[in-house]
């Protein structure tokens, strides 16, 4: 009864929040309920028959959680989930406000910063950690600090809980391997897009564009990568102390890729055509299948659910505007931007590109990361480029030093998209690469809807 009353309070607050354009309307009600009844989250989590799964890490939280939800629902389970990417405590509580009382299982996406306290409240049956990339430097100055927080959270798991983690992420894996995690990995062909790390010579930048500073967590010596799937991920060893990474128990092998639209994976001996491009989505898929398997769902059942997967909230979204096809992707750090750029450059339908960089609090106010993202590759695409976002002028400078002055520089989102449409061949797709709030601004300008359909609600 009390929970029903709280849900009513929450619902009204959500409607107000949406009306007032404050955000996605999913965090405010949860924050209110959290204040009225601090025990709400723990109580509702404890009432789930099959327990809760928590998903955290820098990149891929929303997509991994969303894939997992699809897999669980395909097994006939009722899932309570914060599907809109509202991943601070308020949004997590809202997951239960929106769910029916009778949910079987919870899938909660939780921000790295608040993970230890949420784990302590929810006491999940399983915690899955996607990766640790440099992101939002003004909020998390050190990736090692994020890895340490994730470890603290893992230490707070109940004794019979399962920990699943990305075995291809040396920083993450080294920070918690002694806790006995179940690992997952992705194997890609050598030309699978790993950015070469040259020594640099005349005319070449001295280092790979989108890799992180890579050093051994134990002794600080630089790590040597023997296999690399994308920035910072792969197999590595340390020549200083002998630390070596491992291949996870669950492995996705990339069989072929098809630009923005799809990739074919061999996953736990099942062939899966994933309706999403990009190697980062191979990681999200293997993470979701690994979690499902650890929960007792056979891999073939999980992969057949993923064949139908439709990213409602992901890094990429297709929109129609003025009868033109737009492809909207979130970029927020060098690693994620690198994979998106790679996808854009391998998709022959792309006829124009908008790069929209904003620097509001939710984007990270420090935009220096754009200089480590692989725009050198993007400007080789023979398509017009528009620089947008609140930092359009700085984005234009970045593109200039990458090798091409953008055709148009425009802070207004609607004008930026229209400029791209005008310059795009009639049958071409317009790819829009945007930071978090830049993407909300574009959505509002095009479809009058500021709802969150991308990762990370940093309300």
């Amino acid at each position, binding site marked *: 009864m009390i929970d029903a009353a709280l849900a009513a309070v929450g619902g009204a607050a959500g409607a107000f929040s949406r009306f007032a354009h404050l955000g996605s309307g999913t965090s405010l009600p949860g924050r209110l309920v959290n204040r009225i009844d601090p025990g709400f989250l723990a109580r509702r989590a404890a009432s789930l028959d099959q327990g809760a799964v928590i998903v955290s890490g820098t990149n891929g939280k929303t997509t991994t959680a969303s894939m997992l939800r699809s897999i669980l629902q395909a097994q006939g389970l009722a899932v309570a989930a914060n599907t809109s990417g509202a991943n601070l405590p308020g949004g997590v509580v809202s997951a239960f406000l929106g769910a029916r009382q009778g949910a079987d299982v919870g899938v909660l996406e939780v921000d790295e910063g608040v993970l230890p306290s949420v784990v302590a409240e929810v006491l999940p049956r399983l915690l899955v950690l996607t990766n640790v990339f440099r992101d939002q430097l*003004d909020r998390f100055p050190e990736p090692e600090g994020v890895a340490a927080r994730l470890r603290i959270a893992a230490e707070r798991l109940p004794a019979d809980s399962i920990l699943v983690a990305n075995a291809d992420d040396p920083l993450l894996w080294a920070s918690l391997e002694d806790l006995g995690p179940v690992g997952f990995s992705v194997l890609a062909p050598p030309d699978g897009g790993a950015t070469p790390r040259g020594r640099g010579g*005349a005319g070449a930048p001295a280092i790979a564009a989108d890799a992180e500073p890579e050093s051994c967590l134990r002794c600080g010596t630089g790590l040597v990568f023997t296999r690399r799937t994308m920035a910072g991920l792969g197999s590595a060893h340390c020549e200083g102390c002998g630390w070596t990474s491992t291949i996870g128990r669950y492995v996705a092998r990339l069989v072929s890729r098809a630009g923005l639209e799809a990739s074919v994976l061999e996953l736990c001996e099942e062939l899966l055509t994933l309706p999403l491009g990009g190697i980062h989505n191979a990681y999200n898929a293997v993470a979701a299948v690994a979690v499902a398997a650890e929960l007792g769902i056979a891999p073939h059942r999980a992969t057949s659910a993923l064949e139908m997967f439709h990213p409602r909230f992901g890094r990429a979204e297709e929109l129609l505007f003025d009868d033109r096809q737009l492809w909207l992707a979130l970029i927020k750090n060098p690693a994620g931007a690198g994979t998106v750029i790679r996808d854009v450059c391998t998709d022959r339908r792309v006829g124009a590109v908008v790069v929209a960089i904003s620097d509001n609090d939710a984007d990270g106010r420090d935009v220096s990361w754009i200089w*480590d993202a692989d725009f050198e590759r993007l400007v080789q695409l023979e398509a017009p480029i528009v620089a947008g976002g609140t930092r359009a*002028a700085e984005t234009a400078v970045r593109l200039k*030093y990458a090798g091409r002055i953008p055709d148009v520089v425009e802070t207004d989102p609607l004008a930026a998209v229209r400029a791209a449409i005008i310059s795009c061949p009639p049958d071409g797709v317009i790819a829009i690469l945007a930071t978090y709030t830049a993407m909300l601004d574009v959505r509002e300008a095009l479809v009058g809807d500021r709802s969150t359909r991308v990762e990370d609600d940093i309300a």
Partner: protein
Amino acid sequence: MGADLVIVHLYPDLLRTYGDRGNVLALQRRAEWRGFRVDVVAVSRGERVPRGAGVVLLGGGTDRVQEALGPDLRDRGPELAEAVGEGTVVLGVCGGYQFLGNLYVSADGVSTEGLGLIEAETRAGKGRLVGRVGATAELWGNRFDLVGFENHGGRTTLGPGARPLARVRMGGGNNGLDGSEGAVRGSVVGTYLHGPVFPLNPQFADGILKRALSPVTGGDDLQSLDDGPEERAHEHARTLHR
């Protein structure tokens, strides 16, 4: 067929947290656009800085990486001092700037000796100085406006042998107290500003380039470039608040 300018990126694999690569790229391109031949050389632990380098750049890193670099940096002091003696411009940004000083004292009181190229000491302070910075700089007789972003826990105090690079009108600068930002001593320059700093402040980049190229140009002014995009980005950054 030697290069006109050798740019050394010191520890590019470890000190590169805040887009430091953008500083290397800006110097490289701005020299190339003027017809100079440029070599960018990555120098990491155990490797030597080549003789005759025009610029040596040190970026910022995480505390852990900076600690791990300690032993290698100690060995590098004499080599860099010799390079500076021969006219090489050494530029440190953020963590790299702190390394250029005499001493760094961490939050738990551990002292680490720096390279001693600038008379400066850095102590860990309470909280980090994070946000946009606007400042007026004076470098080797040229005055110019400076914009960027700072994010540092250390507070730096300059000794009488070092001069600040700039005075802040917005932001914390060296220590959040005396209004100074960065430091200059001869051809050694340090700053807390990243963003990265050179692409947004082409006058700063060209000041460094002019000095680094002087063995080739005899110290002549550099040909001017079409800096429209850079100037618009600089002007826009000036309108932003902390």
